């Protein structure tokens, strides 16, 4: 089943390139993918922690390389996120003025890359699948983007290429850190070796720093973040949904999957560095977001900012924080996808996305306004949405980590500061919402509301966020076992 | 060979070698090269390499240099007129060459065997016979490769110098 989830989008995109009917194929493939991943998610037996649906094919005996897929609760959560956002993104794609097939194929490839990476049990394929998205991103932004699309496409490509090769070196060093007899790319085996203490403590730090720099670039951690707002602002809406909603979670997933279980000492040792960086993400980028004058740029910055919370969950190095981070990854992916989707619809209708030039759109576009409002409330973390549950867990996890040190520690300060980030995001999101939809403009543009068909993906996104907001336990009980084996409560 | 003769031939070779490089007139350069190769051939003979010495005269002084002269005459190359020289490049190149020379001489100075005399040979050398035997026994494979090489060179020269195809 997992193989089918991984390869269905790839097969569909190949079919699209060979000339299959564009929208029907893409919609069909992503709907089937969604159904399959929902089935897989609920079918997963969380009492029996560990990887399910494992299939393995030998690739190279010399390198001890296999093509292996398998999923535990964490990966299933991410796969579910990917397929939800994929379906929504494909649905949100309206009329494409040129190369329609290629557009859908690129979307499917990005999602396939993300799903493949989440499902891989093998370091090399885990990496390789993520890179599958690189060329589609370049083409999507370059051909169908808006605004300063060329510069943005270059920037995102070069940054991501550089970041991923840095990451590759980190992965190679991890592979090389194992003793020659047990050297393997298999995640499970490396994890077992790491638990047995076979990765020399002296090697942990350099490996972790390479990984952090590599993943950090992909996640837009602060010094490496400059590509993200520009790319999201210029990308066509479905591409931004997939990229900000799903693909960027790859780096976080990597940290949860590799850094936390395999290099826990290094994570603790460098936690102060990461805390400073994530605070920069939250506070500095948060303030930068409030200063944005355009909706698409604002959303781009806000997606960079929210990465900070997820980092906070990761760096707390306990089950509560890590599980919260996983839930937040899911919740953030949903809410940002919704916001980017509505923004894309707005872009088609109004001449500019300058916040000052817009106003009163709620009168002509009530449904879009409602949907955007839901997305904004979710992103802020209003109770009821998954984001709320997740942020609570992250904050408690991080705060409790400080108590281990028996005195009021840097960690607590950081958590408190990060809490202020929630206020910042409330400020800019609500302000934007009010300006666009409620504020008065001289002459409210007479634009049509989003079409009836688009209510479906909006409902899908909102429903999934609400579902996990009200029943976070379904997700937590699946994800937490992943961390329980090697993290403290 | 007495050292006087060695130094005479070496001096002839080097002086005419320098003349090859400094002459403005290509014909004079080519003729200097002939003399230089004759000196070199004498040095070969002084090292008991009679066969190589003869080959040197036949192939180089005979065939190759005639070819050079022929081409120079064919193209009717005159002494080149003085062009504006790029003095920086000139000085740089001269410096590189000078460094190479110093480097080579240092290595030779540091090489122990370079200060030793040539050991005596056991018997009068019949080197045509020895080389011939080696060439057609041990060195059979390289010889065949060389044969292919000469074939390719021949074809290539014909192709490249055909002015008009039929």
């Amino acid at each position: 089943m997992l193989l089918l989830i991984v390869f269905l989008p790839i097969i569909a995109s190949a079919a699209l390139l060979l000339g299959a009917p564009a929208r029907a194929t893409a919609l069909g493939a992503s709907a089937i993918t969604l159904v399959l991943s929902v089935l897989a998610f609920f079918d997963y037996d969380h009492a029996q922690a560990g990887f399910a649906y494992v299939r393995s094919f030998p690739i190279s005996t010399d390198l001890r390389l296999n093509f292996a897929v398998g999923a535990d609760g964490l990966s299933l959560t991410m796969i579910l996120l990917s397929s939800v956002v994929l379906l929504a993104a494909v649905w949100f794609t309206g009329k494409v003025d040129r190369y329609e097939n290629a557009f859908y194929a690129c979307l499917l490839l990005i999602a396939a890359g993300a799903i493949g990476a989440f499902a891989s049990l093998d370091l090399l394929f885990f990496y390789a699948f993520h890179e599958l998205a690189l060329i589609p991103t370049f083409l999507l932004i370059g051909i169908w983007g808006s605004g300063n699309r060329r510069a943005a496409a270059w920037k995102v490509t070069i940054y991501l290429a550089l970041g991923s090769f840095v990451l590759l070196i980190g992965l190679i060093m991890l592979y090389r850190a194992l003793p020659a007899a047990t050297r393997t790319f298999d995640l499970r085996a490396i994890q077992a070796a790491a638990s047995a203490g076979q990765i020399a403590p002296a090697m942990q730090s350099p490996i972790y720093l390479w990984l952090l720099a590599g993943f950090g670039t992909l996640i837009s951690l602060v010094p490496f973040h400059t590509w993200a707002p520009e790319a999201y602002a210029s990308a066509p809406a479905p591409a931004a949904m997939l990229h900000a909603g799903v693909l960027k979670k790859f780096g976080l997933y990597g940290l949860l999957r590799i850094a936390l279980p395999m290099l826990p000492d290094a994570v603790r040792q460098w936690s102060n560095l990461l805390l400073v960086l994530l605070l920069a993400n939250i506070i500095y980028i948060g303030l930068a977001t409030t200063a944005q004058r355009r909706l698409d740029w604002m959303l781009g910055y806000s997606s960079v900012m929210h990465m900070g919370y997820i980092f906070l969950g990761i760096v707390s190095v306990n089950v509560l924080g890590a599980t919260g981070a996983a839930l937040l990854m899911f919740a953030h992916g949903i809410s940002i996808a919704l916001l980017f989707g509505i923004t894309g619809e707005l872009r088609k209708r109004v001449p500019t996305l300058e916040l000052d030039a817009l106003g009163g759109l709620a009168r002509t576009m009530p449904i879009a306004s409602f949907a955007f409002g839901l997305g904004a409330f979710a992103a802020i973390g209003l109770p009821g949405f998954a984001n709320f549950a997740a942020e609570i867990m992250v904050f408690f996890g991080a705060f409790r980590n400080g108590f281990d040190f028996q005195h009021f520690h840097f960690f607590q300060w950081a958590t408190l500061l990060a809490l202020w980030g929630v206020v910042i995001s409330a400020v800019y999101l609500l302000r934007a919402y009010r300006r666009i939809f409620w504020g008065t403009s001289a002459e409210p543009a007479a634009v049509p509301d989003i079409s009836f068909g688009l209510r479906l993906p909006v409902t899908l996104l909102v429903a999934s966020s609400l579902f996990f907001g009200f029943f976070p336990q379904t997700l937590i009980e699946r994800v937490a076992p992943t961390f329980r084996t090697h993290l403290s409560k | 060979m007495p050292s006087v003769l060695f130094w005479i031939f070496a001096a002839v070779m080097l002086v005419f070698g320098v003349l090859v490089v400094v002459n403005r007139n290509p014909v004079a350069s080519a003729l200097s090269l002939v003399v230089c190769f004759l000196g070199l051939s004498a040095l070969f003979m002084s090292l008991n390499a009679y066969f190589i010495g003869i080959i040197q005269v036949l192939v180089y002084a005979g065939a190759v240099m005639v070819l050079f002269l022929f081409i120079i005459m064919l193209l009717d190359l005159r002494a080149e007129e003085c062009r504006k020289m790029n003095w920086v490049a000139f000085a740089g190149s001269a410096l590189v060459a000078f460094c190479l020379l110093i480097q080579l001489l240092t290595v030779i100075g540091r090489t122990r065997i370079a200060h030793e005399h040539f050991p005596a040979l056991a018997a009068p050398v019949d080197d045509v016979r020895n080389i011939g035997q080696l060439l057609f026994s041990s060195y059979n494979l390289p010889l065949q490769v060389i044969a292919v090489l000469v074939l390719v060179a021949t074809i290539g020269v014909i192709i490249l110098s055909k002015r008009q195809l039929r």
Partner: protein
Amino acid sequence: MMTLGSYLVVSAVLFTIGFAGVLLRRNIIIIFMSLELMLNAANLSLVAFSRFRVSPAGLPEYHAEMLVFFVITVAAAEVAVGLAIIVALYRARRTTHIDDINQLKF
């Protein structure tokens, strides 16, 4: 009797003369002659080493002289092809001056 070193020094000087010619001269034909000087300088060293390393039978080590033989052959072939190219170039461009051959530059 001469030492091995004196031959090597003479050869090194000749090699440098050839190398300097390649670097300094701008006429292709003369550059080509300088390249021949370099090859011959190497040959002189080879023959000197060959004479120096006397085999147990009291003969020079002929392996080096074999290489000299091949070098001479190759050089002759190279000269033939090289001159053919130079002639073709001269026909097309009326020059053998290397500064005139500079259309390929960015």
